[in-house]
């Protein structure tokens, strides 16, 4: 009788643990959606800047290079999609500074992040890109005359941009870009699914599919 009680108690504990973990994992999967996937951290690192509601279920990951024209060209479309689907899309920025010398701008962005001006600075960069990122004659120093528009403390940026921690972020992002087979910018992933045929329409379609999958009705 006592052995039966003991064995029964063991079984109860085992099943509570087993079903508890299954239940918990399902809950988490529902709550975090894409982020519950095993490889989610390759797409979104802790240092990554994220724009959008915390509850948004569609992760739009953009591997970008501040000096890349197409990245700048896509920026308004992304904004427009986010505005059209309020609270449903999260934009995640990853760095892929493939252009020669582009890590200079990533450093500025990371320094601006410390002042909570990441998005403003990125916006200014995209908009002023043509003045400093010409392929035949890149003049990175010219960026400085545009930065005040983002409302950042320039002197502080000059200090912060040499932080060795930024180097690590760049290395990590480049490593993830390699893992995910991003060789050109912008590299888009929507909830982990790569944008296979490059283009505005295709990106819109991919985002639409994911929104429909994650927000039935």
């Amino acid at each position, binding site marked *: 009788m*006592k*052995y039966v*009680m*003991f064995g029964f*108690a*063991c079984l109860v*504990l085992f099943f*509570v*643990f087993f079903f*508890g*973990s299954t239940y*918990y*994992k399902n809950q988490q999967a529902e709550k975090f959606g894409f982020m519950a996937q095993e490889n989610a951290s390759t797409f979104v690192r802790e240092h990554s800047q994220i724009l959008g509601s915390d509850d948004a279920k569609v992760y739009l990951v953009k591997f970008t290079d501040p000096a890349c024209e197409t990245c700048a060209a896509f920026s308004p479309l992304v904004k427009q999609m986010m505005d059209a689907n309020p609270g449903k899309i999260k934009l995640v920025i990853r760095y892929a500074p493939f252009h020669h010398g582009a890590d200079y701008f990533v450093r500025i962005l990371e320094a601006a992040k410390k002042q909570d001006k990441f998005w403003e600075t990125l916006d200014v960069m995209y908009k002023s890109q043509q003045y400093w990122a010409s392929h035949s004659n890149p003049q990175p120093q010219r960026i400085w005359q545009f930065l005040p528009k983002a409302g950042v403390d320039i002197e502080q940026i000059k200090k912060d941009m040499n932080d060795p921690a930024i180097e690590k972020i760049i290395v990590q992002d480049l490593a993830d870009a390699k893992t995910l087979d991003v060789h050109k910018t912008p590299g888009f992933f929507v909830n982990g699914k790569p944008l296979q045929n490059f283009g505005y329409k295709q990106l819109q379609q991919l985002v639409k599919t994911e929104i429909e999958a994650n927000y039935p009705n």
Partner: protein
Amino acid sequence: MPKADKQLNLTWNLLFLCWFLASASTTGSLFFSYVMQFAPCVLCWYQRIFLFPLVIILAVGLFPFDRNVVKYALPLAIAGWLTAFYHTLLYSGVIPESIQPCAQGVSCTEKYIDLFGFITIPMLSLLSFSTIITLLIIIARLNRQRRMS
């Protein structure tokens, strides 16, 4: 059933309850770290060091019933209780974090769960050690009564 037998049965049941509590706590702590993926802090590890052996020791004491089990289990439970008590004080801010020993790795004061707004993991641990100690003391009392009668 003779009175002595009845009392022996009661003691066994109490010990069983004690073992079950220790096992449930162990399961719970494993659930926190392996399913919910909370990294255990240093103080949590000390509490586990005192908790996990209780599962084995108390089970051994159950088959066949050995009243000496209290002697071996109680020191572990008390050590665990002291750690849990310290941890609870730290967690609730009675002791400032600056004097706590686990500066590296996982913070001992980072809040992971907050059931019903006030139940925290160290509190669960303290509760479980307190109950285990109480049960063990009751068992020890019953043992002494039996020896005297």
